[in-house]
Structure formats: structure tokens, C-alpha cells
């Protein structure tokens, strides 16, 4: 035994190098790997909060109807009753947060015909028209109310 360790200083040097390497690994790992990595799985737990914290652009129908209850009444019994406001009016979360922010203007190309132009592939049950044949180029809103299309007249 003594013979083995008699000239073992080179072994000590190698062992010290190994120890230093392992220590460096753990120090680097401590610095580089976030402390919340692995809390739920093989990922950084903070990424959940990162994904959740982005800003909202669409306020949601409930936010709209908090103030615009007249529209809720106008939609009652209509085929558009379940169409959510921002589907036609565009993203309005900023306006919902602060009514002083003016809502964006409606994009005319994104209104009635976006859904109701007759296209092969649309379910047969869904109401579709050829605008030329149906109205000869007359604007939809001169006959239909957007919030209650079965009723005649504006708004």
C-alpha cells in the first residue's frame, strides 16, 4: 500500500484537476441554469408567466357589452346574437380599457360579404348571396340591420 502512494504526487495533481473541473461545472451550472428550471418539468417555470404576460388586443364581448347594452338588446333573437363584437369591429381592448380611445373605423372589405359572399365550400345551410344578383350593387345596410339582419332598416 505504502508503495502505491510513495510516488503518488502525480495522482494528487490529477485528482485536484478533476475536483477543480467538477467544482467549475457546478459553479457554471448554478450561474447559467435559472433557479426555477425543472420545477414542473424540463423547462424554465418562469416561461409560463412570460407567455401569460403579453398585452391583450381583443377585449372580449363581455367588455363591449358592459357599456353597449343597447347593442345587446338590438342583437336579441337575431341570427347575429352569438357573433362577437370584435369579429366585425376589430380589436378594441384599448377602447374597452379607456373609452376615450377612439375605436378604429370599420374596414368595409371586412364586413357582410366576408362571410356571406357565396363561395363553393361554404356549408349549404349558411346564408350566402351573390351580391350582384341579390342586390344589384345596393349596399347591404340599406335593407339589413347588421346587429339584427332579419330586421329591415339601419343600425
Amino acid at each position, binding site marked *: 500500500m505504502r508503495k502505491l502512494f510513495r510516488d503518488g504526487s502525480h495522482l494528487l495533481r490529477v485528482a485536484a484537476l478533476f475536483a477543480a473541473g467538477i467544482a467549475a461545472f457546478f459553479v457554471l451550472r448554478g450561474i447559467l441554469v435559472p433557479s426555477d428550471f425543472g420545477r414542473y418539468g424540463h*423547462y424554465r417555470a418562469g416561461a409560463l408567466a412570460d407567455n401569460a404576460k403579453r398585452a391583450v388586443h381583443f377585449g*372580449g364581448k363581455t367588455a363591449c357589452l358592459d357599456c353597449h347594452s343597447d347593442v345587446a338588446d338590438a342583437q336579441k333573437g337575431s341570427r347575429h346574437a352569438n357573433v362577437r363584437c370584435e369579429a366585425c369591429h376589430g380589436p378594441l381592448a384599448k377602447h374597452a380599457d379607456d373609452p376615450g380611445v377612439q375605436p378604429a373605423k370599420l374596414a368595409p372589405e371586412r364586413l357582410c360579404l366576408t362571410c356571406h359572399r357565396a*363561395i363553393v*365550400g361554404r356549408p349549404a345551410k349558411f346564408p350566402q348571396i351573390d351580391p350582384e344578383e341579390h342586390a344589384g350593387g345596393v349596399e347591404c345596410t340599406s335593407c339589413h340591420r347588421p346587429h339584427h339582419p332579419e330586421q329591415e332598416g339601419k343600425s
Partner: protein
Amino acid sequence: MTVDRRAFFATAGKYLIVTAATAKVIETFLAGATPEPAAYAAADHWWAMVLDIEKCIGCGNCVRACKAENDVPLEAEYFRTWVERYHVRGEDMEHPDVDSPNGGYDGFPDKYPKGDGARTFFVPKLCNHCAHSPCVQVCPVGATFVSPDGVVLVDKSYCLGCRYCVQACPYGCRFIDPRTHTVDKCNLCYHRITKGLLPACVENCPTGSRMIGDLRNPNDPIHAFLREHKVQVLKPQMATGSKAFYNGLDGSVR
């Protein structure tokens, strides 16, 4: 004064009961004064999406809403959700014509003639939020993962942009964001669902063709829908645990 064991335990027991009752009364009184708002607990949810092909009209509202909500580049290669149109001819059901001009962002042109005997329908697509996701398995650094509430998320600060996941996804749902050179895809509007809002595509679907549901909430209407309809997932043979359930899915859809 000497107290025997029996008497000691009897007295101690009485005092303990009185103390506990007093504490409970105080606690109830204080709790009544300050009701805590229920925070979002991820483990209480398990999100899934239902897509009803029979109701999809190919209007593209979902595609536009998704790009607006999630700041997705407007170029035609980058989509978190998109709509495909299938044109299935009777003589060759396995090779339908599929088109998706700009992912359906501008709607669909009337490309096919009426009454040519083919069946045409729209299929909205998005990340399937697989419970056993191939993209999660191949990520070398843990930048993509299934969250405790069942959403496949990307940790943008961790992603190397190595593109393994882009290749691994059987549904082609991932793209590399040209601005950050990290991967991007549908995260089920995680910033919305954790606040109790609907994902932007669901919020803006005019026909109710898209529905989000919480499979861990027994009162969620998704359970009734899944019971009453014959739903399918895309590529069931991959066994990815896909949570995008399609009603009216045709065998020709890949």
C-alpha cells in the same frame, strides 16, 4: 395540588377545543372582510380545442385575429393558425386539391365551379397541443414544453432556433420568427386564457366553428360536445395525444 393524568388531559382538551373554536371564528370573520380573488391555478385546467368543420365558412377571421393578437409577421409563410380548403373529387378521394391562399388571411376566392360533383370544405388548422408532443421530445434545451394546463408553450428566451421542433411537428405548426430567429407557434393565446378570455381566433369566429374547452372542468360544454359528436384528431396514427378535436373531419384531410 396534584393533578392526575386523567384530569390533566380532560382540562387540556377543553382548552384546546375553546382555542380552536375562537381561532375559527376570528378566521371566518377576517376572511369575510377581505375576499381574495381566485388566482389562475394552471394545474386545475387541461385545455383543448374543438374545431367544427361543418360550421367553418372560410371567412379568415381567425387568421386575421390571430396575427393581430399575437404580433405574427404578416408575410404569407408565418401563421399560428390558418385555414385550408379541401376540394375532394369522387374519383380520387386520397388526393384532394388543397389550397390556402395566404393561409386564408384574405378569405378564399371562388376558385371551383359549382356542381362539379366534388365536395369542398374548409379545415382550420393550428397547433394541436399534443399531450405527448414530438416537438417537446426533440427540443435539446427545454425551450418548448407542455405546461401544467396542457398547452404546448415556447420559452422564447431559451430557444436556440435549431429548428428540430419545426421538423418534428407532424402538423407543420411551427415557424421560425424572422425577427428573433426563435421558434413561434400557437400558444392557445395563453395570455388570454389565463385571464379568463377566449383565444383571439375563438373570440372572432362568427359561426362558433372554434371552441375552447377545459377538459378538467366537468361543467364545461366541451364534454357534451365530445360526447354527442363523432370527433377525430389529425393523424391519429402518430399517437401524439392531440387535443385539437375536429368534428366532421374527412378521411381525405391530412
